């Protein structure tokens, strides 16, 4: 089971600024271990962010994204107390969903 994300969602003017830290190895599949064996690729492929139940961001990621990724973005609308729900799915089909309240 993956570690929880760290999510901050704050109202900035008429937009909501979301900052997310995800805990993930993001292994590229290009590296080799000490024995010379390729370390298999293991990375987040899909990220979905929903405000209440409306999707405000959907992204496809690849192995070029760094380990323990940080994602920051803004969307229009949102009010204090609303929920922001974030889900990622990796290429092992492991998935994690976390929720934050807009402050």
């Amino acid at each position, binding site marked *: 089971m993956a570690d929880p994300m*760290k999510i901050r969602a704050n109202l900035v003017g008429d937009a909501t600024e979301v900052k997310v*830290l995800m805990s993930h190895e993001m292994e590229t599949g290009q590296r080799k271990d000490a024995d010379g064996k390729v370390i298999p690729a293991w990375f987040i492929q899909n990220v979905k962010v929903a405000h209440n139940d409306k999707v405000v961001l959907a992204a496809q990621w690849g192995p070029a994204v760094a380990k323990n990724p940080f994602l*920051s973005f803004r969307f229009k609308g949102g009010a204090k107390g609303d929920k922001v729900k974030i889900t990622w799915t990796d290429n092992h089909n492991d998935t994690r969903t976390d929720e934050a309240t807009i402050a």
Partner: protein
Amino acid sequence: MRTMMQRALAAGCAATALAAVMSAALAESTSDEIAKYREALQDGNPAELWEARGEEMWKAPRGPNKVSFASCDLGLGPGVVKGAYAELPRYFPDAKRVMDLETRLVYCMVSQQGYSESDALRNTFGNGSAHRSDLEALAAYVTSQSRGVAMNVALDEPHMHDMYRLGEKMFYYRGGTHDFACATCHGDDGKRIRLQDLPNLTKIEGAQKAYTTWPAYRVSQGELRTFQWRLNDCFRQQRFPELEFGSDASIALTAYLAGRANGAAYDGPAIKR
């Protein structure tokens, strides 16, 4: 003939001067750019992921005895975390030893939670999700609870005073295959390894800035590293014998640098290249 040589000499001097100016400008823009890079990373410091994991670990019952860290005294009373790191290392009468944070955590894991010493010292330095370090996560949590607190290490306490003096001696002690001391790299302004500027730890500002920003998330390693790791890797780079985790030598150097940082607000866990 003579004038030609003079001219060539003059041109040579001019070229050297120009190269010096250029390399100074380059060095400045490099450290500026690295400063910008650090600032950009500040906002999403993955150290927070370690802090969160460490907090959970701190509060959960652990080990064969199923005891949480609520009974672990970091110097300010059992279970008190807030501000504790700003006063470490310190002398602990129960252990009859000066201890830094990591050593104290191991002490609590062994004496209260019932771990064997080798279990408590497993993965002192983490390596990926398969070899995660409990100590690094716990250190991240404990240190985060001292953010903004002024460093206040008790140097007038006799045991601490001895450790500080020992650490100072080690800092200037030259040895190893390269005849290096800590002071070889950290005793002057403007020293660097490749493009990485090194803090001058013989100046109070340098020591304060360096000490108060460990532990730190190392982007190049994707791991959170503690001060024990920092010292261990410095020893490796100097080609010294391996610094034993939690040894008196490691604590003496920590006591020396923490003491030099006294008065500065603690500012970690930070993020470093």
